[in-house]
């Protein structure tokens, strides 16, 4: 019944350290080339030199957000559709300046609601690249007049954010997405190293790991927006609190479950329950809307053919430095070597005098801290966070970890970068709202041909 899984681990550490360093250097080089998360599809649209935004909020006559209203935005050869979110907001990203007709589908308005000004549907909005325009559709009883509605605010002269459009050549687009993917992959790696280390040392697939990522992001939001701290101290506090939560979780739950000899599969289902508890608690306290850690728009920097935001540049560097730090810890320090020993064979490690429980506690703390850091940086990359951010990327993390080889820390890095690249670059060929599906599909293909992962040791699994 009990399976103290001898986890899949890599044979030669030196090779992997070398690979890690190479990966790190490649990443650094690429970061110097720069990136900008151009209109990260998950978050609300953020204007950049290469896109413009049309946004709005639809509220019912009573002032509650109108959820699920569909809108069509048409113009300059683009037809876009969107639906209002839980907070009644919607936004689309357009890739050319010009006039766009925004149409609300009256069928999708909440029951009993009508447009206050049916004549103003569709509404024409002029948008320039790098700027954001609102198109408002007030609901209420049709008054005939335009009333006091905020209406669209197209002021074509207002172009303070307008920047020269990037050359729309396909090379630059590929380079742009590649750099985005690399940065996203590095951030994903930060978040998934803990997942992988934990699997390595205990054999547990932690489905609540995504919530650790969200925790970091939400705590940073609390620090900057509610307490009013500057970003850096808020982020550091969030990471420390995240690490502490890992320690507390292991001491409070998982340590006891291991002592009660509860199997890994059972523990995995417990993590699913925990993930539900945490997700809905976040939503309970912070609502279903988007939370922005930093309100200011990102500062774009153009280097070579691609555009970076300063934030992504710094995030990428932080990720590389941290990952090198983790690699150093695992290969060159006593505790790190002990961690790898536990990963290799917990019983043997215990017999040779290593405090297995102490190491597992450390892995929980370290993993949760890294997840919190990853969460803060990913929230900055997406420009916002929300109660289910971690849940959304959890499967990408699992894909990364499985791809690299379950339980190998370096595998998590390699896998994350591949998943990041696939997720961002696949939007060049498939619709961008399917890009995560592409990344997950890779997971299934890898299992088909190489179930032990890229860096995993071939062994019989099953």
């Amino acid at each position, binding site marked *: 019944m009990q399976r103290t899984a001898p986890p899949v681990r890599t044979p030669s550490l030196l090779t992997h350290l070398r690979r890690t360093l190479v990966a790190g250097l490649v990443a650094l080089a690429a970061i110097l080339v720069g990136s900008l998360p151009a209109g990260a599809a998950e978050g609300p649209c953020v204007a950049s030199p290469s896109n413009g935004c049309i946004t709005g909020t639809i509220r019912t006559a009573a002032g509650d957000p109108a959820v699920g209203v569909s809108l069509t935005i048409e113009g300059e050869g683009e037809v876009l559709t969107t639906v209002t979110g839980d907070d009644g907001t919607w936004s689309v990203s357009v890739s050319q300046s010009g006039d766009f007709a925004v149409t609300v589908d009256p069928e999708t308005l909440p029951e009993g609601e009508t447009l206050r000004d049916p004549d103003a549907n569709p509404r024409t909005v002029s948008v320039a690249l790098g700027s954001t325009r609102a198109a408002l559709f007030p609901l209420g009883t049709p008054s005939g007049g335009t009333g006091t509605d905020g209406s669209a605010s197209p002021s074509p002269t207002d172009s303070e954010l307008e920047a020269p459009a990037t050359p729309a050549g396909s090379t630059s687009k590929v380079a742009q997405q590649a750099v985005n993917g690399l940065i996203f992959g590095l951030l994903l790696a930060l978040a998934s190293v803990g997942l992988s280390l934990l699997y390595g040392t205990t054999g547990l697939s932690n489905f609540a790991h995504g919530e650790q990522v969200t925790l970091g992001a939400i705590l940073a939001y609390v620090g900057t927006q509610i307490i009013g701290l500057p970003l850096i101290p808020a982020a550091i506090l969030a990471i420390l609190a995240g690490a502490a939560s890992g320690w507390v979780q292991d001491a409070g739950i998982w340590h006891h479950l291991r002592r009660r000899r509860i199997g890994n599969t059972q523990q995995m289902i417990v993590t699913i329950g925990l*993930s*539900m508890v*945490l997700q*809905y608690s976040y939503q309970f306290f912070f609502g279903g809307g988007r939370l922005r850690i930093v309100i200011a728009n990102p500062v774009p920097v153009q280097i070579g053919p691609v555009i970076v935001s300063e934030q992504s540049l710094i995030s990428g560097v932080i990720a590389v430095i941290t990952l090198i730090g983790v690699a150093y810890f695992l290969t060159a320090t006593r505790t790190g070597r002990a961690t790898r020993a536990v990963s290799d064979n917990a019983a043997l490690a215990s017999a040779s005098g290593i405090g297995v429980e102490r190491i597992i506690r450390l892995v929980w703390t370290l993993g949760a801290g890294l997840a919190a850091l990853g969460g803060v940086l990913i929230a900055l990359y997406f420009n916002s966070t929300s109660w289910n951010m971690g849940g959304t990327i959890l499967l990408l993390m699992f894909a990364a970890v499985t791809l690299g080889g379950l339980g190998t820390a370096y595998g998590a890095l390699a896998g994350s970068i591949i998943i990041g690249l696939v997720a961002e670059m696949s939007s060049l060929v498939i619709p961008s709202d399917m890009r995560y599906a592409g990344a*997950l599909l890779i997971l299934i293909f890898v299992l088909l041909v190489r179930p032990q992962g890229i860096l995993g040791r071939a062994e019989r699994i099953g």
Partner: protein
Amino acid sequence: MDWSRILTNVVGEAFAPTTAAYALAAIGLNIHFGLTGLLNMGQAGFMLLGAYGFAITATAGWPLWASLLTALAAAALFGLILGVPTLKLRGDYLAIVTIAAAEIVRLVGRSTSLTWLTGGNAGIAGDGFKESFQATSPLGDGRTQIGPFEYSNSLSNSWWVRIVAWVLVALALYLVWRWTRSPWGRVLKGVREDEDALRSLGKNVYSYKMQALVLGGLFGALAGIIYALPRAVQPDSMGRPMTFYVWTILLLGGAATVFGPVLGSILLWTILMFVTSFLREIVPDTVLRTEQIAMLGWVLVGLTLMLLVIFRPQGILGDKKELSINAH
């Protein structure tokens, strides 16, 4: 406090179509997990595929039987595709792949580029696909009140959906009961207990696992149709949380038991309804908003799942000796 309203809500929930749909899905999962030991974390994917298969073809005007067959075929195909790469691997791989595959179905279904087929993230509105089902109703038009419960006879959230749903559940229970006692069912239990022993007896474990995966998925597809009939097909409401509720239901009632899934579903939804209606009555709106109360309910479901698995993994009806949750 209005006790009679709370009571009406709770009892109404006990035989609601949603409760039946979850019971059916849990019966399917019981074939996967309870009987065969497969960790399917993508039951919502089977349900969503079933709902899509039914709704898309019914909207296109296909007859009821053709829509049903399409839904079942979609789920069977999905099971085959999932099973090929994973059934030879360790159990937790199946868990990760099924959860990822269910997510792929949802992500692709809600993609704006497929709006013409699946309605994108808005889903498929109910009026389009319900006709062929509602036309089979012998109950006619109008509404009927039985006790405090008043529903339409045939339309949407109707008496007809309730009757069909619970008849399906009863049928599924009968089948599972027969199967667990059949030689075939005993082989499945053997797969759960000790694959290697079965292999040495010359059984093709892989093939049995595949049969179980597909069969359980078919129940999932039926559940998805029942779930969609009173409302609409909404991909985002049929994501990962749905799978987790099905798991909670199965583990609450008792995996590897015949009646466990039904008991679990009725208990989960009535208790949830009781807690949320009760809180709504006693807590003023200014302290907890309605949606916050719903969230508390889900926190409770998560906690239930955690505590169940730790302290009573066999659930209410289960036999601890028969089932220890464990991956192969």
